[in-house]
């Protein structure tokens, strides 16, 4: 008998994910089970034992239900966003051709890919479920209750993952009809995570718990939470905490909540499958080409500012190619949004050191997003420049100027967002902050460009991309900490700025040397 198509595809996905190591491929399922048991019986209890008293107060309090419901809801949304982000970012044209040519239905492809990826995300869900189960052993729940908790959380998170997969599939079908749609998809892939981050930051900052304690907002929050199945799961957890050893504790909603979670899971898979059968298509749809418009004010200004010569044509070309990809604009939007969320929920902007550290991190991320593109379109694009006289030098200069034109104004914007949260900041301090951060933005851009030339990333998914990005973000943070701790404010200024520039320029020089060696 032939295997179901979705199973064949799932197996292939698993093979792709474990292609780096045959040993891992064979042992992964056993490793996962071992990891789950380790979390449930050893690591989890040990971890929660450290915060035993605080934890017991929380899960036996009035706010336990809402608190756990919020945590589960955040995790549910997180699992929902993962496939949306991944699907929108990816373009798998060649892979799709294989499925299009084979006698396989689109919904089988989707289910197969989902099941294949479940190995990775299922592990994550299992670890989370294990942690919860371990946390509740402190109140003396029995093995059956532990099993129910693990299954409940697994079902909720896997449902979230499936719903996200279905949404992603439908979005992909709708958006891939035009080149612009594909761009929008890629742009959305990052921005879509911002609301979730907002929710998580609100949770971590304690703002959400404050809203639950405040009688004027508590009702509203609880009503909203009750709409989500994660709250039914929270009901089960909290009821078990209060009645250890009872499968269906009296005067609780467990008897309704358990079938509720199971029904929700079945319904989400059933409805999701129907939606996919109707709305998901693998076929490449009509591809309409966009026409370009005349250069706007910004491009004309850049042309003027770069001398209106042949070099300015190169800067503008790089600008156009970058700016016409909406994913790039969304990356900038993501950084600005992230700074805003952090300013609202996490940092205390009245502490200048915290503000500077945060901004240096964010500028590093931004610079890597902008100039990290230098090699991302592959060696063939580099060879266009190498073929031209002095082409590589001009590429680096054009990229640097394009980077500064984006990173410096955005830095000004995010510094102003942060400073807006400081009441009564003197104007002179505002200018000092801006001047300092803008010149740091220039130095960080130089470094980022250099590091991406020293260790080129020829696609967005390479390890080099992540390493360079982390390097850009952490180097200036480490320098900052060294300066702040050891040198005091004057010594810090004398040390931090020149050293940052010296390192950045040296790395750019090394990058330029390496660029000419790439074959």
């Amino acid at each position, binding site marked *: 008998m032939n295997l179901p198509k979705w199973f064949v595809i799932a197996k292939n996905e698993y093979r792709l994910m474990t292609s780096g190591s045959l040993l891992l491929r064979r042992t992964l399922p056993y490793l996962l089970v071992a990891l789950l048991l380790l979390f449930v019986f050893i690591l989890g209890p040990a971890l929660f034992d450290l915060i035993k008293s605080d934890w017991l107060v929380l899960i036996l309090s009035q706010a336990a239900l809402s608190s756990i419901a919020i945590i589960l809801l955040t995790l549910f949304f997180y699992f929902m966003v993962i496939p949306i982000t991944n699907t929108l970012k990816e373009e798998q044209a060649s892979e799709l051709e294989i499925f299009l040519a084979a006698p396989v239905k689109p919904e089988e492809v989707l289910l197969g890919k989902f099941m294949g990826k479940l190995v990775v995300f299922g592990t994550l869900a299992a670890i989370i479920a294990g942690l919860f189960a371990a946390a509740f052993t402190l109140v003396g729940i029995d093995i059956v209750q532990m099993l129910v908790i693990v299954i409940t959380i697994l079902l909720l998170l896997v449902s979230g993952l499936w719903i996200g997969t279905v949404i992603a599939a439908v979005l992909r079908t709708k958006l891939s009809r035009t*080149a612009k749609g594909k761009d929008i998809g890629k742009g959305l892939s990052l921005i879509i995570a911002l609301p979730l981050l907002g929710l998580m930051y609100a949770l971590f900052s304690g703002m959400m718990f404050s809203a639950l304690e405040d009688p004027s907002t508590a009702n509203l929050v609880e009503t909203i939470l009750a709409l989500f199945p994660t709250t039914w799961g929270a009901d089960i957890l909290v009821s078990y905490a209060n009645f250890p050893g009872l499968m269906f504790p009296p005067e609780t909603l467990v008897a309704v909540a358990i079938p509720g979670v199971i029904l929700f899971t079945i319904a989400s898979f059933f409805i999701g499958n129907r939606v996919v059968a109707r709305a998901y298509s693998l076929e490449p749809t009509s*591809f*309409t*080409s*966009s*026409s*370009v418009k005349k250069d706007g004010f910004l491009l004309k200004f850049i042309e003027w500012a770069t001398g209106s*010569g*042949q*070099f300015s*044509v*190169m800067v503008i*070309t790089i600008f*156009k*190619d970058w700016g*016409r*990809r909406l994913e790039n604009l969304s990356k900038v939007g993501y950084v600005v949004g992230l700074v805003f969320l952090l300013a609202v929920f996490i940092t205390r902007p009245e502490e200048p050191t915290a503000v500077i550290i945060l901004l240096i991190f964010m500028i590093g991320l931004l610079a890597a997003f902008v100039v990290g593109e230098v090699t991302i*379109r*592959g060696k*063939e*694009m*580099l*060879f*266009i*420049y*190498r*073929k*031209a*006289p*002095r*082409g590589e030098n*001009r590429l680096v200069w054009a990229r640097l100027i394009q980077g500064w034109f984006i990173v410096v104004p955005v830095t000004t914007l995010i510094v102003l967002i942060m400073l807006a949260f400081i009441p009564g900041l003197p104007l002179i301090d505002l200018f000092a902050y801006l001047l300092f951060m803008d010149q740091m933005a220039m130095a960080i851009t130089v470094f980022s460009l250099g590091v991406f030339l020293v260790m080129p990333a020829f696609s967005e998914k390479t390890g080099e991309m992540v390493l360079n990005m982390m390097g850009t973000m952490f180097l200036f943070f480490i320098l900052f900490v060294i300066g702040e701790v050891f040198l005091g404010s004057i010594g810090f200024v004398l040390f931090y700025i020149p050293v940052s520039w010296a390192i950045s320029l040296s790395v750019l020089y090394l990058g330029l040397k390496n660029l000419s060696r790439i*074959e």
Partner: protein
Amino acid sequence: MSQLIVKTRELCKYYGKKSMIKAVDSLNLEVYEGETFGLLGPNGAGKTTTIRMLNCIISPTSGTATVVGHDIISAKNEVKRETGLLAETPGLYEKLSAYEFLEFMGALYDVPKNVLSNRIEELLKLFGLTQRSNQLLEGYSRGMKQKVLIAASLIHDPKLIFLDEPTSSLDPRAAHMVKDLIKDLAGEAGKTVFISSHILPVMEELCDRIGIINQGRLIAIGSVDEILTSTGTNRLEDAFIEITGGVEEKELLAWRELRGEST
């Protein structure tokens, strides 16, 4: 006698540990001004590596070459100015229009601004792209992109044009157009054209002389007639297989016998 426009001397390019992989091995080649020269060879023979070295994109491991009278090691910028290249897997800014891309390539090769816009218009007209010159390249068919790329290789009016597999990805109509264009470049515009390909009919039709390269070494050179005479064959395909070593028909069909055994 025409002037030499390309001359290589023991040109080598090795890769890997201890230079195990000899992509190009002691290549001695001469190409004359005004001719259409074809470098023919199987996949992985070293054609693209040779073209990349002659265009100063990669450096040779040893040996050297002059292109349009300039040394490829000591006078890279001069070589680059005098040559145009259509790469086998060319880079293309897909988010630019054809006009914008040609404008960019012109700037890259220092074409004066007052000359550039007229030249772009002429090239767009020549390639029949005027109507779609403001559309983004991402919406172009493969053949149309190839036209834009050939136009880009001509934007600085080079003396010598390298075309690496110019028709391999094109449909018959687009391939026909490209072949006509190459004939015009060599005939009417008096350019020297250096083509690399493994498509025999294209090489036979276009080239005045052909060099056959295999495993990095030049193993035959001459006009098509000279190559046929030297191998005692009637067709270029037979000569090519004779020189490079072909696969016996029996070997080709061996899998069918195996299949028969297993069923």
